[in-house]
């Protein structure tokens, strides 16, 4: 028996997404395919698998990505789906769990990546604000009011508003993430050498 669910998670909501997948698993619905917004489950035993999302440096379709997925397969970690640089992994509960060390490492990668995105949109906001102001000023100075200048002002402002909305939405998540980064780095330094 199969079940398809359409659901949206923002990129920084990976923990929520992971929790949801594991909750589905505890109800006996095992994820077998994941794409953008689309999750396919198959009926199985409750808690048969443990799920985990991992963010790769390279796309899973590249040779490096493939080599990693193959390696995981060799250590009984199955990849059931991928979406951009994320892979959806599962491990049979009877084969153990993802190790805590793996969790720390991959949490750190994920958090840093999302942080990059936040910084990008924040910087974009600033650039666009500066650009549209500068543009307005120049147009005003040289008294140039054409269809093009209107378009460009609108264009810069549009991107600026988009990026600022994005940054604003992300602020609460980012504040939490910054705290987590510090905590994970502390944990890593304790476990160093293993």
């Amino acid at each position, binding site marked *: 028996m199969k079940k398809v669910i359409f659901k949206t998670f923002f990129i920084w909501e990976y923990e929520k997404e992971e929790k949801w997948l594991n909750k589905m698993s505890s109800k006996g619905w095992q994820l077998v395919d994941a794409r953008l917004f689309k999750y396919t489950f198959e009926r199985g035993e409750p808690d048969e698998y443990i799920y985990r999302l991992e963010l790769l440096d390279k796309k899973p379709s590249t040779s490096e990505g493939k080599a*990693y997925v*193959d*390696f*995981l*397969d*060799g*250590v*009984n*970690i199955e990849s059931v789906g991928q979406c951009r640089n994320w892979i959806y992994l599962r491990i049979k509960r009877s084969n153990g769990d*993802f*190790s805590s*060390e*793996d969790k720390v*490492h*991959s949490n750190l990668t994920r958090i840093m990546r999302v942080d990059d995105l936040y910084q990008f949109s924040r910087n974009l906001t600033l650039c666009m604000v500066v650009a549209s102001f500068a543009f307005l000023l120049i147009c005003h100075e040289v008294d140039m009011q054409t269809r093009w200048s209107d378009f460009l002002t609108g264009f810069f402002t549009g991107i600026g508003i988009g990026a600022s909305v994005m940054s604003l939405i992300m602020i609460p998540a980012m504040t939490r993430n910054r705290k987590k980064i510090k905590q994970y780095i502390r944990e890593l330094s304790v476990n160093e*050498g*293993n």
Partner: protein
Amino acid sequence: MKQTNVVLTEAVFYTLLVLHKPLHGYGIMQETSEMSNGRLKLSAGTLYGALSSLLDKGWIEELPIEKGSRKKEYKVTKLGKEIVKLELERLEELVDNGKRIIN
């Protein structure tokens, strides 16, 4: 590269040790755990990182994949064996000094 001052992590040291016979990824995890009486459990991420860097350094090598098998096997190289020997000497010095002071 000067190889005399290399300090290996536990994961790397055990990986080089168990790879004195050819093993695939899961085999390395199992052997390591067995050899350390279940104390050292290599995580997938750690092992992957260790294997990649050991291949880069030429301390281990990939064996040609056998027909009908998808799993890659690895084995320590001559250089890798040298490194383990040097590390063992360093560890012995560590242990000797430790014992001398503590006892």
